[in-house]
């Protein structure tokens, strides 16, 4: 990396700044949804506890473990790309993408369970529970969409890594893809307690 030409360094800094701006705007989008969650929760704590008890804790917790492992692989890919190790980089990126698919599988199972039990907005739920489940579907659905995009991004980056000459000088491309995945992980680290863990204690 120390041998980067001025042009490549400029290109790398511009690309990483662009990704930083994009991730910042994404974090504000989720920040607004999180703010709405707490604004509505203040007046409906018991209903939000009940909602969280109906969410599948084992799915949310497994999803957290899966996303953390995927984020570690994505970070490792960024570091390996900097050393020019194309095959190892691609392996880590594909591993992270596969874990992303596992997460989506877990969410699909959970969504199916919620539909079967009528835990959907517009159903015969009390008004406060409607708020919880509307926010649950909108926020986790938007997050799942980001995971899906992330899987595509990581897979594309893996293919790009193995066919790129001088990967070490262009590692910022892999690092940017990994940064996107880290945002997906960071958002879930906030959603997990909101929709699964804050249930008033107890089993």
């Amino acid at each position, binding site marked *: 990396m120390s041998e980067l030409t001025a042009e490549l360094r400029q290109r790398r800094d511009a690309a990483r*700044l662009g990704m930083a701006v994009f991730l*910042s705007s994404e974090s504000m989008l989720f920040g607004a949804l999180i703010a709405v969650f707490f604004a509505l929760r203040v*007046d409906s704590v018991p209903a939000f506890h009940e909602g969280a008890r109906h969410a599948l804790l084992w799915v949310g917790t497994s999803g957290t473990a899966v996303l*953390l492992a995927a984020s570690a692989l994505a970070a490792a890919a960024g570091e390996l790309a900097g050393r020019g190790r194309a095959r190892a980089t691609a392996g880590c990126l594909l591993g992270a993408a596969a874990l992303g698919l596992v997460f989506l599988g877990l969410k699909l199972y959970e969504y199916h369970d919620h539909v079967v039990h009528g835990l959907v907005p517009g159903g015969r739920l009390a008004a406060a529970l409607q708020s919880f489940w509307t926010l649950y579907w909108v926020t986790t659905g938007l997050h799942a969409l980001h995971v899906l995009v992330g899987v595509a991004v990581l897979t594309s980056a893996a293919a790009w890594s193995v066919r790129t000459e001088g990967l070490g000088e262009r590692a910022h491309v892999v690092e940017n893809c990994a940064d996107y995945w880290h945002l997906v992980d960071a958002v879930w*680290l906030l959603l*997990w*307690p909101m929709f699964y*863990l804050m249930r008033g204690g*107890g089993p």
Partner: protein
Amino acid sequence: MIRVILTAAALVALAGLTFGLSYVPLGAAEVPVAMGIAAVKVAVLGAGFLQLLARPASQRLTFVIALVLAATLLSLVVLDTANR
């Protein structure tokens, strides 16, 4: 690579802590504890995986602006709900 392993280990430990505490009836402390630990996890991820502290000032400033705007929004929500 040691950075990645240490960050992942810290995140797993914090996730275990917040999961364990979710079984404890914390009352009014529930939100500050759960979201406080979540915020620490995001900070660890930002420092360890995103390497925000090692980035050029322009990139750090971008994230700081987003953080300030999000914090402003959350503060206004807290103020609004506290004064209803």
